[in-house]
């Protein structure tokens, strides 16, 4: 059965299904139940934006509120994973990684290797990323490149409800630590999602749109900007192929290279800051491994190298726009610089 649900509901459903299937799955986080110790409604919040709402009624104590101590409870999730549970820990905003990063990158990520293959850490750390919510500099970052850089971590960032459900189910079943990045400005977006359980394998990008003129690669919210750019380009008779990475580590190099070998042109779009990010990562990989196929320099479209500003008037300029993506695509087609006025950034 398929129906339209939001990404928020899809995540809720994935958690529900996996908790039903596997008694070792537990879920923890700040206010993910809500009202613990208080005297009003139980399960009052279900997370700060309601993502886990209703799960406590179904699964009871397997959903646990935590004190405001990310190092302690994210570390506890990791320790429990090393001892046989499959915890899903919510880091409300991924921006809070700074107070618990050691547990993620020096502990969870390294156990398997550092212990000679004798440990597994099936933990999922899920949280919000991304700008556009008027949440300012400390609640709006992508930070996906920081996690992607670290060996031993898997990094996921879905662009829609269907993928969110399948990727989260996969993440919970995975035997390595997974950083699951949910773009807060996609929470309300709906799409067709089957009611039953399904897993989307990691490392398989999704080609959302076929095209032979230029390849546009992105993930998360900017996938939708890339699609809008492709529409605009189509009106100029430029057919763009749009690839949604879905997972950043592992990453589906094959799909990217295969596409670029056909189109000869590549635009990489990343909402993260420009230095050492996914855009550079992909551009460099293609530049090394498919140089012969490239007819133009790979164009990167990213957020600027600044913190995220609060003022809506500035924040709206911060996230890569469809116009900027289309303009970059046209630059790959007209390296001398003349682009149709209508969609130039």
């Amino acid at each position: 059965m398929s129906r339209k649900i939001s990404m928020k509901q899809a995540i809720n459903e994935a958690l529900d299904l996996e908790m039903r299937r596997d008694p070792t799955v537990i879920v923890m986080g700040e206010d993910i139940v809500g009202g613990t110790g208080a005297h009003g409604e139980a399960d009052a919040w279900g997370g700060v934006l309601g993502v886990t709402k209703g799960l406590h009624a179904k699964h009871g104590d397997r959903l646990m509120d935590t004190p405001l101590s990310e190092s302690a409870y994210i570390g506890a999730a990791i320790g429990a994973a090393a001892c046989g549970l499959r915890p899903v820990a919510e880091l409300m905003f991924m921006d809070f990684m700074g107070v618990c990063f050691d547990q993620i990158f020096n502990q969870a990520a390294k156990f398997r290797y550092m212990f000679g293959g004798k440990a597994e850490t099936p933990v999922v750390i899920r949280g919000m990323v991304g700008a556009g919510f008027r949440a300012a500099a400390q609640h709006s970052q992508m930070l996906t490149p920081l996690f992607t850089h670290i060996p031993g971590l898997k990094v996921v960032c879905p662009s829609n409800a269907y993928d969110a459900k399948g990727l989260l189910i996969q993440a919970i079943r995975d035997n390595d630590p997974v950083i699951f990045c949910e773009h807060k400005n996609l929470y309300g977006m709906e799409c067709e999602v089957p009611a039953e359980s399904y897993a989307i394998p990691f490392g398989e990008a999704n080609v959302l749109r076929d095209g032979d003129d230029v390849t546009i690669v992105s993930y998360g919210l900017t996938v939708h900007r890339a699609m809008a750019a492709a529409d605009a380009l189509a009106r100029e008779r430029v057919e763009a192929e749009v690839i949604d990475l879905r997972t950043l580590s592992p990453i589906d190099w094959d799909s990217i290279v295969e596409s670029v070998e056909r189109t000869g042109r590549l635009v990489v779009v990343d909402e993260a800051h420009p230095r050492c990010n996914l855009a550079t990562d992909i551009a460099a990989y293609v530049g090394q491994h498919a140089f012969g196929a490239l007819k133009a320099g790979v164009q990167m479209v990213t957020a600027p190298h600044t913190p995220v500003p609060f003022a809506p008037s500035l924040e709206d300029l911060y996230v890569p726009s469809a116009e900027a993506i289309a303009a970059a695509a046209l630059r790959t087609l007209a390296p001398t610089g003349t682009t149709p006025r209508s969609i130039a950034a």
Partner: protein
Amino acid sequence: MTENPFPLSKDDLLRAYRTMRTIREFEERLHVDFAKGDIPGFVHLYAGEEACATGIMMHLNDNDRIASTHRGHGHCIAKGVDVHAMMAEIYGRSTGACRGKGGSMHIADLSKGMMGANGILGAGAPLICGAALAAKVRGDRGVGITFVGDGASNQGTFLESLNLAAVWNLPVVFVVENNGYAESTAMEWAVSCDSYVDRATGFGMPGVTVDGTDFFAVHEAAGEIIRRAREGGGPALLECNMVRFYGHFEGDAQTYRAKGEVEALRASRDCLVMLGERVIEAGVIARAELQAIDGEVAALIEDAVRAAKAAPLPAAGDLLTDVYVAY
């Protein structure tokens, strides 16, 4: 009028009342305007908690520094940050305290010793240790005050700072603003100690608990430990038991609170009403004098909102300024 039985002059009492009223009016207005959809982002209101910020900040000068929290408007106003600049900031205008780049959660004014509201729980504690260290190195008798909620008092950054301040004997006061909740979670459950005095003892510093809705109690306790810190006596912890009148943030339906809880608290523990009644009953200040302040404050806030709405938005070019290098 009769003799003043309070340890503050009439002028100081009027100043305290004005500060608390300004905070209250500021927050009540934001509550209304947020509901109308005028204000973007996350907004955490300090309404109900005014006595704490005010009672403490009256002991400070611009040379003393504070590090605030996500619920920072009250601290800002009590520390002397300009109300117009604050309002403009919350509206994301170029005339804002941070030129629109910070918003409610990041208002700062270093010239007033206000080192910033903070979106990260507990993050102010290490920073204020640094401010106090700077004061100590300079020998300027400055003190540092950091505020932390009951929830954030479980953050490692805060706990480490208690130890650091004690070991370095820094002039710091750690103020725990215990309003009983961290978002929807009860302090009773989330904080493992019986009393914050115990937690302070565990870090080798004195701890004091006061009714944070009682302006006089806060003022007195704060005065003592701030004086002690200023004179080189080292850090201390002050727990203020407070009352949150609104939700965790604007938009919070607060179903986790018992029915009637907020109404009861508003009726019995409104720090602003309590201060007003105390000074009127004592015959030190006339009701009309307070009402005059109320009127002036209302006009001030009205003007701040009007000015904020009329102020220009940051220009596109501002996106790339104020960072050492933009690509």
